[in-house]
């Protein structure tokens, strides 16, 4: 039972690992953007007179982690799935004795982890080890503060992956409904990126937005795990934040399942 789904993840993961040129391009782009963001933030901290909710060193780490783990965020859909939905290859997906939602969730896990594996490791080596060697200590990714912090960070990162996959699945279901997902699925990532903290770390947003920002689902993607890493959220007090990630994952999974089930009753497989 489990074996079937595991095989799907593994096969799809191996397929996606083949896109090495895309990974190199992505690495270079994200390096460039990371550098720009850090320069902007340094300038901001240099002229700021009031105490900020995050220290510059925390912001720098937050940015590098974001650049390394960008592929994990729900910013894209599975191209193969998109093609299948458009050209009718989805027929074959439906003649497999698998639960369709779980089947596609496995594909999604592979999508969110394969590209990330390729890009995050060189990025972490660069930001954690090479930058200090080159003398850019201030701009480097700081090592996590101890074993407990590392473990809680990794736990929270797994929950972020769950959240990212469950939201990517919502985007996949939208594809099934609309056939071409170009509309909603282009708008959604903009919101996801802003509200996750990927553009500007969430604590730096105005005070009056903090209430809303702490409730909305997307902070679980970036803000929660990265602030645990930097120590901005103390590891031992991270329970509620991890629970927040899990609750929103459950909501998205429930919603995705319901929408997929009802879309299957109206699915029209054209042609052939």
């Amino acid at each position: 039972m489990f074996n079937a789904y595991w095989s799907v993840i593994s096969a799809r993961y191996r397929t996606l690992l083949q896109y090495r040129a895309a990974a190199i391009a992505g690495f270079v782009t994200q390096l460039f953007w990371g550098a720009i963001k850090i320069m902007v933030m340094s300038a901001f901290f240099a002229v700021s007179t009031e105490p900020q909710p995050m220290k510059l060193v925390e912001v720098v780490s937050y940015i590098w982690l974001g650049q390394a783990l960008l592929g994990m965020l729900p910013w894209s859909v599975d191209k193969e799935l998109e093609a299948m939905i458009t050209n009718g290859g989805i027929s074959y997906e439906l003649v497999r004795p698998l639960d369709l939602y779980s089947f596609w969730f496995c594909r999604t896990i592979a999508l969110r982890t394969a590209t990330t594996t390729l890009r995050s490791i060189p990025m972490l080596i660069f930001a954690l080890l090479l930058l200090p060697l080159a003398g850019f200590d201030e701009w480097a990714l700081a090592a996590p503060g101890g074993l407990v912090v590392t473990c809680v960070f990794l736990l929270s990162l797994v929950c972020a992956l769950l959240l990212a996959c469950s939201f990517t699945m919502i985007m996949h279901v939208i594809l099934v409904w609309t056939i071409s997902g170009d509309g909603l699925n282009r708008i959604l990532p903009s919101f996801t990126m802003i509200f996750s903290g990927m553009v500007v770390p969430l604590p730096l947003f105005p005070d009056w937005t903090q209430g809303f920002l702490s409730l909305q689902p997307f902070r679980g993607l970036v803000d929660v795990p990265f602030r645990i890493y930097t120590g901005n959220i103390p590891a031992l007090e991270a329970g509620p934040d991890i629970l927040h990630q899990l609750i929103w994952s459950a909501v998205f999974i429930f919603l995705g399942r319901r929408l997929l089930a009802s879309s299957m009753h109206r699915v029209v497989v054209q042609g052939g």
Partner: protein
Amino acid sequence: MVKYTGWFMSQILVKDLSKTFSVAQRQPGLVGAIRGLFSRVYSEVHALNNVSFTIDPGELVGYIGPNGAGKSTTIKILAGILVPTSGECLINGRTPWRQRRDHVADIGVVFGQRSQLWWDLPVIESFELLRDIYRVPPQVYRESSAELIHMMDIESVLDTPVRMLSLGQRMRCDLVASLLHRPSILFLDEPTIGLDAVSKLAVREFVRQLNQQHGVTVILTTHDMDDIEALCRRIVVIGAGTILNDGDLAGLRRKINPERRLKVEFADNPVSISMLDSGQVLTEKTVRVVGHEGNTLHLAFDPGKITTTDLIHHISSRFAVKDLFVENPPIEELIAQLYGDTRVDKVSDV
């Protein structure tokens, strides 16, 4: 509910199956496109209208019809992919769209126009993936994969990524992939489309063996009448969503066009059509001349009105005949006559 009495021998039972799609009408031009944003007119397309048939275990059924007749819609409903608008369907005692997972574990499907293999992976990895997806026990997998790979002669391409295979190789691999879990029913939707002659023959031979030696029930849709003639004892013809004929090829011939063809090659003197027609027996009603080339005449006759031996005797007693050949009219002609005026052009192939 379906009454089981008397049906229980059937492996596939389809009763009054209908499928209606509603299609948004688009008006031409920019104005039409803008209007379509606010109010849409839907028109209903009846892809299937009260289709009923039963299929017994081990049958090999040809399911044919013109584009848009409802072939693929039927197959997709039987495979559990589409939900019909109304009607009943029981396959191995299950309703495909209600018990999809149990149902699909026991069927194999090949859509000729698409591949079920994973595009970027070597063929063997797709097979192994399917083994895990269908939870085929290792021993069963070893046996059935070895046998199928041998039957389809694909040992040499097992390590090749699917995207690098030729269409013929890909179709052979697709057929193997659909059978690794030893399904009791195989749905083949245009399995020979686009294949060269050698691959077509290989696919036909494979399907025949599978049906005869392994008792797999096969439902085959195709536009290739040679497939039908070579494989199917039973033919279901569908047009515009309704079943036009269900029976064997001989029955279809009797029903549509009982004519036989006689090809006569005369020895040397070219026989004029009028000479042949002036005979007492060979009147317009019993024998027609359908073609004439050189010394050869193509005659069409109704064996119910004049027996083949009588006709041959009449001709050979009057003229010097070099060669004779009796044949059935090509199956394409039969089917074309059967489709007749069923309006199929307005229904899209859904």
